[in-house]
């Protein structure tokens, strides 16, 4: 029954290998068929696995499929083993389903690109790595997937490598996430040394057995893992790479930098939630970081001109929501928001990509406008996605997921009103910048003409995702709204449910409040950007806006704090004074060598003489002693 699980990551991997090896000789059709087909096949298998899982859920909530023993050394052993539970199934579903749609979209999007085969090879490799990441039953294998997605991200950001800036963005993404990855691998070492295993289930059991709540080791290891999660998920203070990562093709942004890879941090924290529960301080930090990130990124999104950069900051902000949810212990709310976010953000990126694609690669929103008549399907789907992002009440899926987070930020035991306030304010900003995007791009006077209508391959994924973004929220309804909670029940086998501080609060009040925030944001955007209020003009020219536009100057800060001192240090150490010691050793050796080399004069007889004399001397001593 479970034997097919390994095929979920294996099929894209195989397809990737085939395309890498034979990409040059295969025709575009075959490459496209392989690329899309493999991911679709994985999606089908995932759905079958999901149905099987629901119909016969294992007792402890997960089952493991061991493929083979990867390595065994000393007391350590790691298997290539895949663990299936509700959490990984949801992630798998999102990855393969959204992945398949994005692949389909890419067939048209990348049609005229010379790197067509290369693109699909990377994408398939990415899907495979991401699936390994979420299915891994031990942290080492997970780390393999973790680095695999990092690699694919690097490759795909720099996909159009002929532009130097793209390469720079790719390197930036790689290096910044590397900071987090380093913390994470140290965390893995720490866990292994103290708990003796990297198998996630055993690890969680051992941790809860051996470590008390708030014990230093628990805090340290949770903090280190959090470091990895921050890097991958572009959270404060490692968020600077994601906006630049938009240099990659739009499907890449949709799949990697919105839907899947950047949520790996969410997955990691959810997966190791036991550890975080043991370290309340770190968990609180998660919440605070999430809240801070969502506001900072929201403000940045407000001022961007580049279509995709708005969405990138929005992604950072939305992941901030997920982190907030994780931080307050609302695990299932975080995962729910991840899923919904994956749908609508992929939709938004694909829509934005389509617009950019059709407008001669024009990225600046203010050079677009009036597109709603010319590209109606894209407009409608984009509007649905935006509604979801802005959490338009009742009809959008985003409302339900974000509302849950807002509610738990207030009401859970770990929550506080400050967190709620931040999240609430964030939601308000979200709806402003979302509809700023809509009004600027799709309304007003037309500035650029689209070249042609999008093809079927591009519109079908948009429509499908739009439908899901509309109805996806109904699988999890708040308690006061019919209390229809398939999703959290499904997840409850894996993740604990949120603990509420008290029952006294009225959930409905909060829903109304967030609805007001959302609608108010939309109205404000309407005033500022549809009616062209002069305030918008003056604001966008202000210092503050520039500050926000530059992403709160984090790049500048890092340049001053890390890069410049390092360059300065390297400069003063130009002559490598530490090396002087070694040079001295080398010089001394060289001198000794020159002494010795006098004996190496190339005279055979001299060598024989010395050899013989040596033997004679030794023999004399041996005989007489």
């Amino acid at each position, binding site marked *: 029954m479970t034997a097919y699980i390994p095929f979920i990551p294996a099929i894209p991997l195989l397809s990737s290998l085939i395309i890498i090896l034979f990409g040059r000789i295969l025709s575009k059709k075959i490459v496209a068929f392989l690329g899309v087909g493999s991911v679709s096949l994985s999606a089908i298998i995932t759905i079958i696995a999901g149905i099987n899982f629901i119909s016969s859920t294992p007792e402890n909530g997960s089952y493991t499929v061991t493929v083979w023993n990867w390595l065994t050394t000393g007391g350590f052993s790691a298997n290539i083993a895949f663990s299936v539970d509700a959490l990984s199934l949801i992630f798998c579903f999102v990855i393969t389903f959204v992945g398949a749609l994005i692949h389909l979209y890419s067939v048209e999007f990348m049609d005229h690109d010379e790197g067509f085969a290369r693109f699909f090879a990377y994408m398939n490799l990415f899907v495979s790595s991401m699936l390994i990441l979420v299915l891994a039953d031990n942290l080492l294998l997970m780390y393999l997937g973790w680095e695999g997605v990092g690699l694919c991200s690097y490759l795909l950001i720099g996909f159009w490598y002929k532009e130097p800036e793209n390469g720079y963005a790719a390197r930036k993404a790689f290096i910044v996430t590397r900071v987090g990855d380093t913390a994470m691998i140290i965390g893995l070492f720490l866990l292994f040394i103290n708990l003796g295993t990297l198998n996630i289930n055993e690890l969680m059991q051992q941790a809860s057995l051996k470590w008390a709540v708030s014990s230093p080791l628990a805090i340290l290891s949770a903090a280190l893992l959090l470091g990895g999660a921050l890097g991958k998920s572009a959270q404060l203070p490692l968020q600077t790479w994601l906006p630049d990562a938009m240099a990659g093709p739009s499907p890449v942004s949709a799949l990697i930098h919105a839907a899947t890879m950047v949520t790996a941090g969410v997955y990691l924290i959810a997966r190791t939630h036991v550890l975080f529960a043991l370290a309340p301080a770190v968990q609180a930090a998660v919440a605070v970081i999430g809240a801070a990130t969502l506001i900072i990124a929201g403000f940045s999104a407000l001022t961007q001109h580049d279509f995709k950069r708005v969405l990138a900051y929005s992604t950072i902000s939305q992941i901030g929501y997920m982190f907030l949810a994780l931080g307050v212990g609302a695990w299932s709310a975080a995962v729910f928001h991840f899923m919904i976010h994956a749908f609508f953000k992929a939709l938004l990126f694909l829509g934005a990509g389509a617009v950019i694609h059709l407008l001669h690669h024009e990225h600046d929103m203010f050079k677009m406008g009036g597109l709603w008549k010319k590209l109606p399907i894209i407009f409608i789907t984009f509007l649905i996605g935006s509604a979801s992002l802005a959490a338009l009440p009742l009809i959008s899926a985003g409302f339900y997921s974000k509302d849950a987070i807002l509610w738990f930020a207030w009401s859970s035991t770990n929550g506080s009103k400050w967190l709620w306030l931040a999240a609430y304010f964030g939601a308000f900003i979200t709806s402003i910048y979302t509809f700023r995007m809509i009004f600027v791009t799709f309304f007003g006077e037309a500035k650029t003409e689209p070249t042609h209508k999008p093809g079927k391959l591009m519109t079908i994924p948009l429509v499908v995702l739009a439908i899901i973004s509309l109805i996806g929220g109904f699988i999890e309804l708040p308690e006061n709204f019919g209390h229809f909670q398939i999703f959290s029940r499904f997840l409850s086998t894996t993740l604990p449910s949120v603990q509420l501080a008290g029952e006294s609060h009225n959930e409905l009040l909060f829903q109304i409040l967030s609805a007001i925030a959302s609608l108010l944001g939309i109205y404000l955007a309407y005033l500022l950007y549809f009616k062209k209020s002069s305030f918008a003009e003056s604001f966008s020219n202000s210092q503050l806006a520039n500050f926000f536009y530059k992403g709160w100057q984090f790049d500048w800060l890092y340049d001053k704090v890390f890069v410049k001192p390092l360059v300065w240090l390297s400069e003063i150490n130009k002559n490598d004074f530490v090396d002087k010691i070694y040079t001295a050793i080398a010089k001394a050796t060289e001198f000794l060598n020159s002494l010795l080399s006098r004996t190496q004069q190339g005279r055979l007889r001299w060598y024989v*003489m010395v050899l013989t*004399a040596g033997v*004679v001397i030794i*023999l*004399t001593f041996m*005989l*007489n002693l």
Partner: protein
Amino acid sequence: MNTIFYIAGAIALLSSILAITNRNAIHALLYLILSLLSISVIFYILGAPFIAALEVIVYAGAIMVLFIFVVMMLNIGLEEELENKWLKPRMWILPSIIAAILLANLIYALRVLEHQTVTPQIIQPKQIGISLFTTYLLAVELSAILLLAGIIGAYHIGKQKKKIIHRFLKK
């Protein structure tokens, strides 16, 4: 028989000394062959007739012919003045000292033998053959490989590239 031993031994030592001091390569080789033949005599009277025959066939008959062959091919042997330049009397000092120390060591070590006399028995070729192909079978195989390597090595090293190339083949 002891007399034969002493005579053959004396000839062997003398001809060896002449071999290493001679200026002429062919003469030296002849002295060396003489030395080998007298050692072969010693082998014979020590009860090793097979080895004596091998010494003559292989050592004196084949290996030394190779030497002579090479010396003849290089057409050397009449370079007395060069050898005189190479063989200055003071060159003998250090080697002689080393040899003297070694000889002293040898004599010192030999005192443990305490005048043991030997009454050798003749060992027939058959015994050697049986010993070779049972106890030392592996060593025989290894020597076969060694000889093969020697053949190939000598062939490869000794091969000379054609120095004269046809003018059309020159660059």
